[in-house]
């Protein structure tokens, strides 16, 4: 289906790629002001090198940029030529702003004079947030709504509104902060004006909140769509031809739902912050209307104190020294640190002190048992050895392997049989003859094998 289109469309750009193109994407402050100059004075028209040169010179003479240094016209021109200015084809001496340069200037001007506040927000919302009917059946319709309706339009419009509102609030607060520096009467008038301004801003914030309420509708609609695709994915079996497609559709619907919800959460947080900023400033305005005189005087007095300290303190290698007559004040500030010395045992201080050890009764008992068992074993081995010797002297020949198998069976243990064998051979007198044949014999249960060992007594023939 269209699976490939969507997996390849979002190519991931790495930070180093961004870093490399950054200088081409964004002009410096100075370059930007030159571009703005050109954008205003030569809107969508061609310009000559001399005009660009003039724009650079004019910009460098702007009072707030006056650093006392001459700007290098040629260098600025060349760096603009990279991606903000281009030559007009077939007219080597004429230039125009690139579409990118125009876009950059427009972004900035829109930020200052934001058109979003004039947009009918709610209408825009209703248009772009409405999910098409077909979205529940066709993943393509949902993806298309997400990309073109949501990402490219609705989201941008909401963010634009929020941004402009935030800027307006910040600007209003900034101007408010200056009010305390003006005289009391005009300050009162300004405060009244601000109260009205804040009311307008509050209305705007409420309007955004209201519009965002549509998110509940979008949320339920998206949830139903995701459920629908999930049901289809669950119903499909691995053998179905559409199995992969059903799984893909489910994932896509889920991803879109998640992204839309994350966006709404972000919007909520931003709105909260804007509301808090407005509420704080509002409370302060209310407080100030009662104590404007005191606060304003306080602010001015504090400034005077700072200026006095800055002008009359002295700095040397040892630090900053307050003016001699300035009253130095103390405050409670103790340093607490409990030092915990770590103890390292180097073994130098070993005290030898004899002490009586308690008897370990359990250990003693176990050792005794072990010893008795061992003794019992030795007695048994000895008895078997004596029996074997007796058999040998009677029969003059015994098949030791068979005898050992008998002992093993009798004692129910391999160890005792083997040890009897060793013991018997070790104590055998040299007159006896031992023959070991390379022939394996085994016991009844056929789990132990021994070489065939025959012992013949020569004692009789010698005697």
């Amino acid at each position, binding site marked *: 289906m269209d699976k490939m289109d969507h997996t390849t469309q979002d190519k991931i750009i790495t930070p180093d790629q961004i870093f490399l193109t950054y200088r081409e994407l964004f002009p410096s402050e100075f370059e930007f002001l030159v571009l703005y100059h050109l954008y205003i004075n030569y809107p969508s028209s061609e310009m000559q090198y001399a005009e660009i040169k003039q724009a650079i010179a004019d910009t460098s003479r702007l009072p707030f940029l006056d650093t006392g240094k001459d700007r290098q016209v040629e260098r600025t021109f060349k760096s603009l030529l990279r991606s903000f200015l281009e030559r007009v084809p077939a007219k080597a001496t004429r230039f125009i702003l690139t579409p990118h340069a125009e876009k950059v200037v427009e972004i900035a001007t829109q930020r200052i004079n934001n058109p979003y506040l004039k947009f009918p927000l709610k209408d825009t919302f209703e248009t772009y947030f409405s999910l098409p009917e077909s979205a529940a059946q066709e993943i393509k319709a949902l993806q298309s709504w997400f990309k073109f309706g949501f990402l490219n339009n609705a989201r941008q419009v909401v963010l634009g509104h929020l941004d402009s509102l935030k800027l307006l609030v910040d600007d209003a607060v900034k101007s408010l*902060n200056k009010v305390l520096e003006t005289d009391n009467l005009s300050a009162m008038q300004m405060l009244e004006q601000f109260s009205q301004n804040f009311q307008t801003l509050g209305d705007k914030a409420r309007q955004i909140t209201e519009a965002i309420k549509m998110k509940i509708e979008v949320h339920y609609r998206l949830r139903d769509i995701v459920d629908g695709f999930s049901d289809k994915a669950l119903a499909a079996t691995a053998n179905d031809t559409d199995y992969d497609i059903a799984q893909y559709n489910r994932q896509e619907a889920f991803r879109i739902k998640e992204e839309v919800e994350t966006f709404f959460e972000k919007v909520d947080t931003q709105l909260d912050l804007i509301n808090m900023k407005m509420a*704080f400033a509002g409370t302060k305005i209310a407080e100030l209307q009662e104590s404007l005189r005191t606060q304003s005087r306080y*602010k001015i007095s504090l400034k005077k104190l*700072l200026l*006095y300290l*800055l002008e009359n*303190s002295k700095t040397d290698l040892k630090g900053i020294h307050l003016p001699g007559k300035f009253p130095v004040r*103390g*405050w409670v*500030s103790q340093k607490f640190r409990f030092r915990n010395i770590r103890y390292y045992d180097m073994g130098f201080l070993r005290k030898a002190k004899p002490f009586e050890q308690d008897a370990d009764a359990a250990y003693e008992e176990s050792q005794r048992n072990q010893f008795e068992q061992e003794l019992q074993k030795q007695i048994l081995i000895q008895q078997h050895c004596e029996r074997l010797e007796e058999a040998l002297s009677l029969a003059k020949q015994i098949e030791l392997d068979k005898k050992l198998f008998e002992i093993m069976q009798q004692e129910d243990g391999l160890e005792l049989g083997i040890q009897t064998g060793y013991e018997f051979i070790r104590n055998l007198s040299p007159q006896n003859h031992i023959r070991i044949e390379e022939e394996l014999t085994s016991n009844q249960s056929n789990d132990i094998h021994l070489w065939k060992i025959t012992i013949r007594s020569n004692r009789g023939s010698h005697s």
Partner: protein
Amino acid sequence: MENNDTQQPGFAFLNTPQVKKLFAELNITLLKGTHIMPSSPALFAILDEFEKDLGHYYSTLYGLVLEKRSHDNVTYFYLEFQQAGRGRLSDPALYVEMDGKTTIVACILANLYFANYFSYDKKFQWEDIQYEIEHGEHREAYQQLFFNDIRADYTDKEWDAVQKILGTVINFFNRIGLVEKDDSEETMHFTILPSIHHFIEIYQSEIENIDTFLADIKL
């Protein structure tokens, strides 16, 4: 015990389980000069509940005053000397006098706080102070004090030295709760807390009668 408004303050509160559990930490934190705000919920809760008892404790045993203030919707507690003297901490080893750089940085921060009277969060960074020094209303006085010279440009090394002075004091203020730093000790992103009013209070009489004070001191 909970209803300590009706009772005479005493030392019995030291035996309550929640005080026993946190008293060592609370005592050390207060004696360090820290301003305790609701952002330290456990310590703040004890101060709030046993305010009278703790006040009695510090005034009887240390000769200090447990102060409670509210500014910009934030309540905070701290220890202060009595008007008459330094109480049981009169030994110079037991208190500090605000040195030049601490006094000046506190005054700079108090001014920044008031200059942003209507701003919800009073967040600043090194660049804001740098701007004041370079382009602010009192730039010449700032430059003369910090660089011993007034010039168009200063070297990075010179700026680093100034940043270091301010950084040390701001880190100290962070420890005692006059500012709250957002990140590591190295960088300088901070919020000036309402407790900066403590500095203003220390110099309250001078600030309230600033013109007379300045006229007298310049004599």
